[in-house]
């Protein structure tokens, strides 16, 4: 039991560390898109002055106000899954629009974020394997591909919002997982004292 507890504690710790790393990656990804993006010669610098609307792309179903830490982890995990869907949609749209021959820093980091986000969703799911449930999962997003339906300017704004969502939810995941790890660690110590 102790070994399992240790592994659980370390898994939460590792997940929190991964969330922190992912948060930094997402922040860097947004910088590349807005300012330093290799995707465009003419950078989307206007986005740096753009104030996004208050509405979020990733919204969760109603949850009880008083959530336990485990429920908060489940809550965040659900949001990360939506973020993952958004990122996959974003990648597929950009690849469809621009092709795959572009291979700059933005494209490489975009792939890295996708891989790490998948790992984070998986690792947070492993933390909740014991039935520590949370909110009901949000409905999956509909990825609208192709530029025929959406004009280019709106697509750029949407990409910007997706990247902001990634930053927001990875930050939230980092904090929640850290709290989760701290609580688990405290419980372990109390059990050892008893």
């Amino acid at each position, binding site marked *: 039991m102790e070994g399992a507890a240790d592994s659980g504690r370390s898994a939460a710790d590792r997940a929190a560390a991964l969330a922190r790393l992912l948060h930094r990656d997402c922040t860097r990804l947004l910088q590349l898109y807005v300012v330093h993006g290799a995707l465009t010669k003419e950078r989307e610098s206007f986005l740096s002055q753009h104030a996004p609307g208050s509405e979020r792309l990733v919204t969760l179903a109603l949850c009880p106000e008083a959530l336990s830490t485990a429920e908060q982890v489940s809550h965040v995990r659900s949001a990360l899954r939506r973020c993952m869907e958004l990122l996959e949609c974003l990648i597929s749209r950009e690849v469809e629009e621009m092709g795959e021959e572009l291979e700059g820093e933005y494209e490489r980091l975009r792939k890295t974020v996708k891989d790490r986000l998948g790992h984070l969703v998986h690792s947070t799911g492993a933390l909740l394997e014991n039935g520590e449930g949370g909110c009901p999962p949000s409905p999956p997003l509909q990825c609208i591909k192709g530029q025929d339906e959406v004009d280019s300017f709106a697509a*750029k704004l949407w990409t910007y919002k997706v990247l902001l969502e990634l930053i927001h939810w990875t930050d939230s995941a980092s904090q929640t997982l850290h709290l989760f790890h701290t609580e688990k660690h405290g419980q372990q110590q109390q059990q050892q004292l008893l």
Partner: protein
Amino acid sequence: MPCQYRRKDTKTSRCEFCSPDLVYSAFPVSGSSLVSMQGWVTLALLLSLGVKRSLGQNGVGELPVPRGLTLNPDLPAQTLSLTWQSDSSLFDLEIFHTELMNVVLNETVAVKADAVTGLHSWTWHSPLPLECTSHSVRIRARNQQSVGQWSPLQTIPGSDIPEKSESYMFPQDKVVPVGSNMTFCCIVKEKEDFKDMIYRRQEMSATRLSRRTYAITVTNQPASGNTGTNVICSSQRSTLTGAVVFVGYPPGDEGLVCETRDLASAECSWKKGRDTHLRTKRSRTKYTLNGRDCLEANERKTWWCSSKVWEESWSLLARNPLETVQLTDSAQLTDRVHLLAPVNVTAVEVKAWSATLRWSWSVAAYKKLEMVCQLQLFAHELSSTRNYSSPGLSSVELEGLWPDLDYTVTLRCGSKHSFWKWGDESAPYRIHTKMDRPDALDVWIWMDSSNTRRVFWKPLSLRKSHGALIGYEVSQNSAEEDGWTRVFLPPGNFSYPIILNNSSDITVAVAARNPAGLSQPSTVTTPAYRADSQLSVSELLAINGSFHLSWQPNANASSGYAVEWVPTGCSGLCPVDWKKVPESDSSFSVNSDSLVAGVRYTVSVYSLSTGAPTLLQRWQGYSQEMVPSQSVSDLSANQTGSDVLLSWKDTAMEHQRGFIRGYTVYLANAAHLDLIANISDPEVQSYRVKGLSLSLFKFVVKAYTSAGEDAGSTVAIKVEMDTAIMLFIGILVPLGIMFCCLILVSICCYKKREWVKKAFYPEIPGPKVSGDWSSPRGPLDVKPSPHSVVHIVESPGWDFTKEGLFPVPEEEEESENDNIEVDTDSDEPALLRYYNQVVGDGSHSNHVSDSSGSSTASVGSTQTEITYAGIQSPTSSQGACGGGGYRPQMQSVAAPAEPQIEFGDDFQDDALNTGYKPQCSWQMDSPEAENFSGSLGSPTSVTSSQFLIPESSEEKPQPSNTWFHNFLSGKS
């Protein structure tokens, strides 16, 4: 009256109004309404005559109002199509921005009714997107004389109507060519203010079109980036909306070429050409080949396209939103065969000198194709290209390979008939040929003057070794011995010493061995003994670093000649090089590659026959002469009188680096060298520099070759006076000076002889004696005083004190000196010595008289000749003689008071009584005064008894009656 309306092109559309008489250039339908107005002014003037006539006929207001005006906007194309019904064919049109009723078009157009529908139609291209704001149109008929009533306004709503309260920008995602002009409009959200519009991060000047609509016009747009050019509309608070425009170029593709790889299908490729700058899905170039989408190019963004069947003509359409470009190509299939690479290339049989190569084809149709294949062999320093031809070629025999070599083989093939291009190259394949016996060695024997010979052989190249060598076998035999003596040497040895005997020639055979076997032995014969060559060695001049040799053909050279060159003076393991020349040749060039500059070579030509080589000719030379690396040695300078003889020796040969052509002699000054001699004969190795002054000289001697002088050796010499002169100056001159001084002194003394005489030989008056003292004269018998005897002891440490006087017993004294009597009453210092001596006749009388007063002790005794030597000790007191008058010099010695007083009293009494006092001087006549006789003639101080010019005590005493004595005495 027929009338035609047609579009001339897609970019600028014009209407042409046609009449039987005139064809007028009608209005431009683009945005340039001002230009069109000028045309219509002309048209109006031309039509005015007809109008006036029509008015005269029909009257004003009779023209009907056009009916059924309908507006059909094409928003992406920014065109507005108008249709109406009317009997007239000339109309006035007015188009407004509805909200502010700004007129954007006011033109008169001639439009004929469609023959089928009876409708008039006209299209207007708006410079502004039609969504930007509402547009209203009205129309009226016109003829030559009158105009009709305006039709009711027909309006197409824009996106700035209250029902659409959001922000919008138009146009969206438009693709335009580089350099075009565009107008963008921003419809501000209800209750939002407008701040600015930014194009490519640059704020533009906006024009207000309606309550919520603002527009900017950009001109000469540059090419966009990958994701288009952003146009942003902002309020004071945030970004309201925006648009992206893609600015680029039409397709620049060119050079379509189609070929077949499998003799059935086609692959067409082309060059991309200029970058369109249009990369998004909707703007990038799309390709179709003979009407079929080119998926390879459209999806993978490559520049080739395939077709399953060969068609003799090909058409590629490259299309982007700006333009469509058509590329064409046509050819027969057999003319465009581009074979694939051979596969499974293998060497089935590899030998030392050949190999068999096989391969297969991935396309079965190749087996019947008449093809040519090119095989490329790469090896170390060996590369070759070979062509083979055959239908469906799949194997070749590779001849002419070299043993034990790594070959890399590549293969490519093409259609032999109507050759188009080489096919793809096969992957490199490696072949290693087997070994074979080495080739025979090139052997030479170096014969110097010693008894030892050394056989040399040249290392075998890869081409000749045919495998890694194991070693060499050196065999030798002589006529005296049976059989061969063999020695096996490991690889890396390229020479072997041969010991000669004096009786027979020695034949040496050398062979190389590798794992495949032993090479054919190469033999060379050396004579039994070889004396030093009596051939003269001539100088050999190189031309461009090479030696060009020629010699008289020799009838005995049945096997040709051997040219050998080796550094001169080398012994032992020398870098001997040689070349064998056929007998038909009698000249050879030693290339500069095998020669080292600055090294003297001895080049020899031998005739080769069945026996030992015979020396024919010998030279020495440099491939390139250089300045000597070392200066002359043993440079010395020797003075001979005022000349200096410089001599030196040559430096060693290895340092000469060229033939010494002579020497230059320089006189080194402070900052430069002055050439004083150029000796062009190298055998002369000395030089005499004449007429040098007494100074320090530095000479520099340099040897020179044809390349120049060496650094030079330096010698310094101080030229001094000659020895004879030195002797003359050092000895004779002082002697001369001394002689002159003596003469001067003599003259001076002669002229002052009276004074000298007075000073040194004053006249001594004769004693006045009462009675007859004149007879008889004879020796005085002076007997010593019976009281005591003073014995004079000479001692080196003699102190001039009374302690030096030793009392001697009377008996003893008497026994030894019977004839000596010492004044025992006198307490004289020891310096005063008494010698009871019998003197000669000359001065005897004087001494007798003188002694009478000199000692009171002697007065009362017998007559004694007393001589005052006048020699004082350093402690003698001059005051002893200074008591007034003329007194003898005496030393004041602390003595017993009584005798001193006694002596003094007596002395003073005598002086007072007689008025004469003996001189305190030396007695030249005293024969006992040997120590002082040497100072005869020397001037003596009046106050001192020291001789002013002392002479050597070793000189023998001069007789008292010398010329000098006479001189001083005034005698002639």
